């Protein structure tokens, strides 16, 4: 019987040094390029399904098409009609799921998607231009401002796209089936070539001050390592 803790692996392989953080083998590559593509798969991802007009929907407060951070700094994405995706720090999926109040709705499903989906972050002023090489949806501010969420094809792959700017810099989260994560990652790197895109490992801050603080705290008490 193996007695070591299991190591989780993202579907995305980035050339260069790797390290173990939060129980995940992640790339230690760091980029300061103006356009960066990072693997955010280790973030906890929880899918919630409930009636679009029910009490839980009202409590979550984010309809399909929008994304916002709640009081716990969890990113709540309205990812479909009656469907939400919660994104939080690595290892927090049980906690995220536990906060969902299921009693008042007829039928609520809460599923941990952490291991079932890949999550990428594309950050930089040219992010929309790079993404427009692959995605038919209008990425202009007037149609998809910060906080907009939609599902469409990116490089022919069904992908949830969330505009989630970081300190005023244009940034997109891209969420797809885990099995096609590497494909999407490679397609975005190719599309961003003319804008000098570089791969970026799983580092912190995860483009958000609040999340950084949470993770720093988790690391400090050793619970995440």
């Amino acid at each position: 019987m193996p007695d070591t803790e299991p190591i989780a692996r993202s579907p995305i392989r980035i050339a260069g040094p790797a390290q173990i953080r939060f129980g995940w083998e992640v790339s230690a590559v760091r980029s300061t390029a103006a356009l960066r593509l990072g693997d955010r798969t280790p973030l906890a991802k929880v899918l919630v399904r409930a009636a679009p007009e029910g009490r839980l929907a009202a409590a979550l407060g984010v309809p399909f098409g929008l994304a916002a951070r709640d009081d716990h700094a969890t990113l709540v994405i309205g990812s479909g009609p009656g469907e939400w995706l919660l994104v939080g720090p690595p290892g927090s999926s049980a906690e995220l799921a536990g906060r969902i109040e299921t009693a008042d709705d007829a039928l609520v499903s809460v599923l941990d998607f952490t291991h079932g989906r890949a999550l990428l972050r594309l950050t930089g002023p040219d992010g929309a231009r790079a993404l427009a090489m692959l995605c038919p949806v209008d990425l202009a501010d007037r149609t998809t401002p910060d906080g907009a969420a939609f599902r469409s094809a990116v490089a022919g792959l069904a992908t949830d796209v969330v505009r989630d700017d970081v300190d005023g810099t244009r940034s997109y989260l891209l969420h797809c089936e885990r099995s096609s994560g590497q494909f999407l990652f490679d397609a975005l790197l190719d599309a961003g070539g003319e804008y000098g895109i570089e791969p970026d490992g799983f580092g912190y801050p995860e483009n958000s001050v609040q999340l950084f603080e949470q993770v720093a705290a988790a690391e400090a008490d050793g619970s995440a390592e």
Partner: protein
Amino acid sequence: MFQIPCPHCGLRNVAEFRHAGERRPRPDPRTATPEQWRSYLYTYDNHADWTRETWYHRLGCRRYIGVERHTVTNEIRPVS
């Protein structure tokens, strides 16, 4: 490429959808005659006019939506 106004996602390219066919009621499986059942399976009106259709938004909200489409011009309007 024409667009379909998805009630959940907004105006999207038709390439995101799968055509699920004309809207036709399913006969009662306990009483349907072979003629009725096979008409349900295989016979399409295919009018050169407005038709009621179901489209599946496979690359979007994953909802089956009803629309009216003019088969000559590809104009689309929501089911009235």
